[in-house]
């Protein structure tokens, strides 16, 4: 597909609807984004603390296994046997001393190198692997892997810069802010969304919709529009941070300004889930950071999570949440986190709409592949913004990244 056909101009504020359903684009994304010069989140170091601990993950459509090596380092291997291409790890997590493909018992070391081929010498002089077979040329494909703040990333690409350069200082600082000490996994959520992965990716960068689609705060009188905050972008616009913070003097409570007047206003009968214990050294209540293509790191009050977005063909995606606390949480802090997590996840008061809104777009745009969106809040610029966050700059940044990779 040529640029002229799909996207005749350089305008990333107007996205052709075809990109949300075209199977050819999905195939090209696998090659140019997921197997291209991007760093993809795989799992947390905390999930594989000891040598031999592994868990499976994906980069786009590609199955990956992440394993802690004997030296304590992290190996990211393509989960595909060099013999016939079967999954080597078919269980999602475990602890092993080596990997063995169940089909013909080919074995691999934790770094992916081939260590054994069953009946390589044949049986009683008959059969066996061809002469000149070189095990060193038949390991599991090993990817560049790096970790930062306990988050493990990998890339298929030799051209991608190192991970820190890829993320850039603005978003690295946001990660440092959240991951102040060792984390503990409180559990996992997963949602299957009836839409292309990019619709969810856009949504996470779209601060404009937050108080308009999600009216929970507003309905229960919790929205505070005088709060501070802003949008920050990596230099190339690929990654973003959106945050809100409470005013230091508590004046936010008096200054609420309604953007949607509701006929009825309710108070929460039990507001304890909105309790926020400041724990990250500032007064930031919400902080969402995204790393292109598919990672979201979330702090909503004391609800901490990473979300990995996984394409499931052009027409669906899976959103995988890993919900976190800190290792040193006491019982009462853990109880608070479990309560505040009612705000997020598949049944989250302020996130459930994100599960269905992509499907609403999918249902309406499928019949109009030549149509285009109009995302001009804040014009066409891809630049940081202030407290109102009424801008689509970060969404345009996503499309800048997508076009950079796709060369479309």
């Amino acid at each position, binding site marked *: 597909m040529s640029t002229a056909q799909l996207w005749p101009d350089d305008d990333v504020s107007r996205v052709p609807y075809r990109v949300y359903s075209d199977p050819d684009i999905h195939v090209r994304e696998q090659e140019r984004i997921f197997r291209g010069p991007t760093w993809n989140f795989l799992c947390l170091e905390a999930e594989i603390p000891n040598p031999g601990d592994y868990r499976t993950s994906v980069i786009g459509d590609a199955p990956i296994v992440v394993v802690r090596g004997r030296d304590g380092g992290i190996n990211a291997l393509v989960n595909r046997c060099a013999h016939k291409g079967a999954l080597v790890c078919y269980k999602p997590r475990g602890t092993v001393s080596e990997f063995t493909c169940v089909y013909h018992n080919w074995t691999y070391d934790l770094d992916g190198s081939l260590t054994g081929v069953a009946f390589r010498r044949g049986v009683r002089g008959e059969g066996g692997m061809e002469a000149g077979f070189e095990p060193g040329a038949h390991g599991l494909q090993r990817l560049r892997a790096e970790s930062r703040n306990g988050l493990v990333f990998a890339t298929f690409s030799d051209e991608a810069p190192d991970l820190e350069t890829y993320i850039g200082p603005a978003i690295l600082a946001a990660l440092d802010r959240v991951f102040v000490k060792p984390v503990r996994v409180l559990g996992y959520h*997963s*949602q299957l969304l009836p839409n292309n992965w990019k619709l969810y990716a856009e949504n996470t960068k779209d601060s404009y919709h937050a108080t308009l689609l999600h009216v929970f705060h507003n309905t229960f009188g919790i929205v505070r529009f005088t709060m501070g905050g802003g949008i920050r972008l990596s230099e190339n616009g690929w990654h973003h941070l959106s945050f809100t913070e409470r005013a230091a003097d508590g004046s936010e409570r008096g200054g609420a300004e309604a953007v949607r007047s509701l006929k009825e206003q*309710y108070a929460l009968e039990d507001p304890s889930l909105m309790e926020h214990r400041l724990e990250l050294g500032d007064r930031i209540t919400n902080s969402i950071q995204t790393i292109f293509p598919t990672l979201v790191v979330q702090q909503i009050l004391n609800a901490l999570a990473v979300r990995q977005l996984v394409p499931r063909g052009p027409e669906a995606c899976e959103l995988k949440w890993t919900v976190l606390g800190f290792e040193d949480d006491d019982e009462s802090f853990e109880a608070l986190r479990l309560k505040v997590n009612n705000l997020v996840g598949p*049944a989250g008061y302020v996130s459930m709409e994100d599960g269905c809104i992509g499907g609403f777009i999918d249902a309406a745009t499928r019949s109009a592949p030549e149509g285009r969106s109009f995302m001009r809040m804040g014009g066409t610029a891809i630049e940081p913004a202030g407290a109102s966050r009424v801008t689509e700059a970060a969404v345009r940044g996503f499309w800048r990244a997508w076009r950079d990779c796709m060369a479309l």
Partner: protein
Amino acid sequence: MTGTGDALAARIARLNTAYAHAIDDDRLEDWPGFFTDDGLYRIVTRENHEAGLPLAIVHCDGAAMMRDRVRAMRTANIFEPHTYCHTVGAAEIVGKDGGVHTARTNFIVVRTMHSGAMSVFACGRYLDRIVERDGALKFAERVAVCDSRTVDTLLVVPL
């Protein structure tokens, strides 16, 4: 008295049926009334449950939080209209600890969308702690353990 043997089993069966029908008939305002005031309601995945991970999809600690759930669903949350049809199995009464009966009951929930599309939205087991309050059985705790680790689109109506 909560009764014993068959009489208790019949009462728990009636409780389970009334609970399921209140949800299926969209009488969600009645739903918190199946619990004690300080009752606990959680929806969890089997994956988290078996790994001993405490995270819940829905975590209501007390009937007030349950009423907030219903109010949010009625007034704030946005979702495609749909209905549930619960089928609940026979309760297995696992034990008794003081005045608390523990029971386990399997469930299947078929979700029907506005479009007519139907799917098995959830199946699994209720793990219950049931007590007597003013002559009626109430859930002191109901944990819906879902077999699937994933939720199709979103969850808004309780299971």
